[in-house]
């Protein structure tokens, strides 16, 4: 019998699990995918918002401002790169300037420090590549950027270190409510727990319904992104927003903590909660949107596109509450933007809710707030590199040349708590394959290292869990018996048709 089961291994679920791991209780986290951060948490704007967007009094406003204040400390504790680079909401006409004033007042009411309106000249000095038509901007000094999957992985690793159990490939199929708790059925067996935290993201409405708790709906709202080569990492320094609309904060031009710049997201409500396909229209839309902020986008430097889904609840606010219908069931749903920023504050709130619901939470003495050391070869100086290679020669073997990721880092990503099991798992932990060649060079090498370390046949290695195997078969496996001579004629023709004079290509 577990004390708490957390459903969902996104940033919200992992943050809650990590905070629960401070206490002397048994906690398990169930995740339907093969790894944490496989849904909304891996594909979003990665912005730590200041907190002026949300209407005062909403969960979003409260959690955002508190989360923003907690974020740098947690990142420092878990060795997750965090950059407090500030944000700008840019206005291009008088009407928009009025919106800036409104946003600033709203921010002040929400308790956001460090807000000020900046005029055209200062703005252009701060961001020379910005549209010269920009008239003014709302500057928020407390905004920042983080890598959302690295942050989520770090939380999960730390939770696992502090004895939270994780069960992957385990979608919840049924929730049975009993007198003393819940039985939660997954394809890998049932789990019994006193409390359920529903942090199932896009599927939290379905989980709530499964338990017979309050009904609400989650609509997936797609956002598409284009990400640029690090060569263009200087394009903007701060998070650049347009003046927001009712529906979203608009299409950003924004640096990432790892040194790229992205544009996006657009905002389209869709039906399918698994539809993370990028569309032609979407790409055009975000390019057009991005150009309004930065007219000269280096479009030839796009290295990849992706789409993420926001979990939008019918209340249009976060739902953070203990069920009044089902004792012991806590809903944490509708965590759309600013969900990443809010995660630390949401976890705090959930702890309070559990206490109110009668849970005894006693801090355990052995809690370790840090995670095992993380090595980032590309960021080290040469003296440090030398020292590490002397200790472990695998640090001298560069596997991903675009991002300078070494074999030692990849092996570490596999062997860490909740280690990587797939190419994407390695990618999210090390950045191998995230550079300009998008794994063209290193993916076959990473696949070999995964097979070696996990003692699997290379054909079993996946991109992102069962069903996404990279290789379809072995050498000669597809040649049916009797087929060996099928192309003999074709080859004869080839040698006959050879005229010489030209050599072949690679």
């Amino acid at each position, binding site marked *: 019998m577990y004390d708490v089961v957390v459903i969902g291994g996104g940033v919200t679920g992992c943050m809650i699990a990590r905070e629960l791991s401070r206490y002397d209780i048994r906690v398990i986290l169930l995740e339907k995918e093969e790894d944490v951060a496989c849904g909304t948490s891996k594909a979003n704007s990665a912005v730590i918002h200041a907190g002026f967007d949300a209407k005062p009094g909403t969960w979003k406003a409260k959690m955002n401002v508190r989360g923003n204040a907690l974020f740098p400390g947690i990142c420092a504790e878990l060795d997750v790169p965090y950059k407090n680079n500030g944000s700008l909401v840019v206005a291009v006409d008088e009407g928009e300037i009025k919106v800036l004033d409104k946003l600033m007042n709203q921010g002040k009411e929400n308790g956001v420090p460090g807000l000020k309106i900046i005029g055209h000249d200062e703005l252009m000095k701060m961001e020379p590549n910005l549209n010269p038509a920009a008239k003014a901007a709302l500057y928020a000094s407390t905004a920042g950027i983080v890598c959302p999957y690295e942050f989520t992985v770090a939380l999960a690793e730390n939770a696992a270190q502090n004895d939270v159990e994780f069960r992957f490939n385990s979608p919840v199929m049924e929730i049975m409510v009993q007198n003393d708790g819940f039985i939660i059925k997954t394809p890998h067996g049932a789990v019994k727990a006193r409390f359920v935290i529903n942090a199932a993201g896009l599927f939290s409405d379905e989980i709530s319904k499964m338990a017979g708790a309050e009904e609400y709906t989650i609509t997936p709202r797609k956002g598409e992104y284009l*990400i640029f080569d690090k060569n263009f990492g200087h394009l903007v320094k701060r998070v650049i927003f347009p003046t927001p609309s009712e529906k979203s904060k608009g299409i950003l031009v924004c640096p990432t903590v790892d040194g790229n710049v992205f544009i996006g997201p657009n905002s389209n409500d869709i039906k399918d909660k*698994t539809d*993370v*396909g*990028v569309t*032609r229209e*979407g*790409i055009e839309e975000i390019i057009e949107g991005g150009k309004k902020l930065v007219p000269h986008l280096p479009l*030839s430097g*796009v290295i*990849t*596109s*992706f789409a993420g889904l926001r979990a939008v609840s019918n209340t249009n606010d976060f739902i953070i509450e203990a069920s009044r219908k089902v004792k012991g069931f806590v809903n944490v749903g509708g965590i759309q933007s600013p969900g990443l920023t809010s995660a630390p504050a949401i976890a705090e709130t959930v702890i309070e809710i559990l206490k109110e619901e009668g849970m005894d939470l006693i801090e355990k003495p052995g809690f370790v707030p840090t995670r095992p050391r993380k090595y980032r070869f590309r960021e080290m100086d*040469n003296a440090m*590199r*030398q020292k590490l*290679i002397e200790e472990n*020669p*695998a640090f*001298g*073997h*560069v596997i991903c040349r675009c991002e300078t990721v070494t074999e030692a880092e990849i092996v570490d990503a596999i062997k860490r708590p909740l280690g990587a099991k797939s190419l994407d798992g390695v990618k999210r932990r090390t950045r191998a394959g995230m550079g300009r*060649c*998008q*794994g*063209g*060079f290193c993916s*076959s090498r990473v696949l070999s290292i995964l097979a070696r370390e996990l003692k699997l046949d*290379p*054909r079993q290695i*996946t*991109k*992102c869990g*069962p*069903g*996404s*195997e*990279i*290789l*379809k*078969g*072995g*050498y*000669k*496996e*597809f*040649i*049916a018996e009797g*087929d060996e001579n099928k*192309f003999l004629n*074709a080859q004869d*023709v*080839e040698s006959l048709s*050879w005229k010489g*004079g*030209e*050599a*072949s*290509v*690679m």
Partner: protein
Amino acid sequence: MLCKDLVIIGGGPAGLAAALEAAEQGVKDVMIVERDSGLGGILQQCIHNGFGLHVFKEELTGPEYAQKFIDKLENTGVEVLLDTMVIEITPDKRIFAVNSRIGVLEIQSKAVILAMGCRERTRGALNIPGFRPAGIFTAGTAQRYVNIEGYMPGKEIVILGSGDIGLIMARRFTLEGAKVKCVLEIMPYSNGLTRNVVQCLEDYGIPLRLSHTVIDIHGKKRVEGVTVAKVDENLKPILSTAEFIPCDTLLLSVGLIPENELTKMTGADFDASTQGPMVNQRMETSCEGIFACGNVLHVHDLVDFVTMEARLAARGAAQYLKEKDGSCRGTKVIAGEGLRYVLPHAVCVEKMLDEKLNFFMRSTRPMNKAKLVIESENGIVKTKMLSYLKPSEMINIELKKSEIEKAEGHLKFILQEEGVLQ
């Protein structure tokens, strides 16, 4: 810190030929730094034949072609550092590299030849819509899986782009028992060598669909199919022609990009068309004593020309080491109408290594018949009639030293299509 006369970055066909030539020219302290565990670069996985007709007058496979150089290298005293990745180079030719045996190496070289090759364009660079499942490979990555690792990355394959590696892989996959459903090319003409279209597609009955592209990728975990469509003259998909093709793999052969991340650190001037550094007649970049050759300079279609270019770079480096002269630019070379680029970008006549110089260029579009005009400020230097031109097949023109000497101001290359209104 190590001190070397000449460091060659990259041990593929360009680096190998440069090293051998440098040794033959009497350059003493030569070192190749190679990140892979063996020499030969991409040739190691190019197990098809057709290499070496210009250089060796015989038909070799990629590994055989590379081995000819590797064998000769043994008695030259050229030092080879394998499994070693260069991570930094400074304009004054200081190189930082890492490997497992030594750690971080610092090498001060008197001259450097950049021979890092190229990488493949990816799906991201094309903005192909759809999901991002397993089963999308660049042709070269697939080639490595099949020819080096011994695994089949796909069974039912659609190939986007008719670049040569894609064509070669269409045949390779077919011979390995996979089904290649078609090769799609967005342009109205193939981007590979004509002989590869004939020998890799036509001989195996694989359809080449020109003016077609992929407009959607289906499958959340693994590719389940692609939607393809015809494109109009502006290369925009015509949605009414959309058609679903089931497949488990999408292979991309949509171009190669010179791998110039290190070159950029030297501050050398770049050519936006080739995406490589600008070089003079001895393949020297605008950064004195730093030379470039092979696919890092511009993407070649024939390895034989890589070899020739690398030899020129090595002789240039030898000349530089001997005479300690700077990166002289002399006469500027301009790619005019009808041409994407011309190499070299400048000629310093007094430093020419031979009595003649070869110029390499690519046309902007296919032309059945065209007149190449080379002019300077004081008139036409040379004209030549050319036929059956394709952007994928490099044009090679030789000019005599006496012809270049006469040219004033610049050398401008223009390609005038014959039989059409200009």
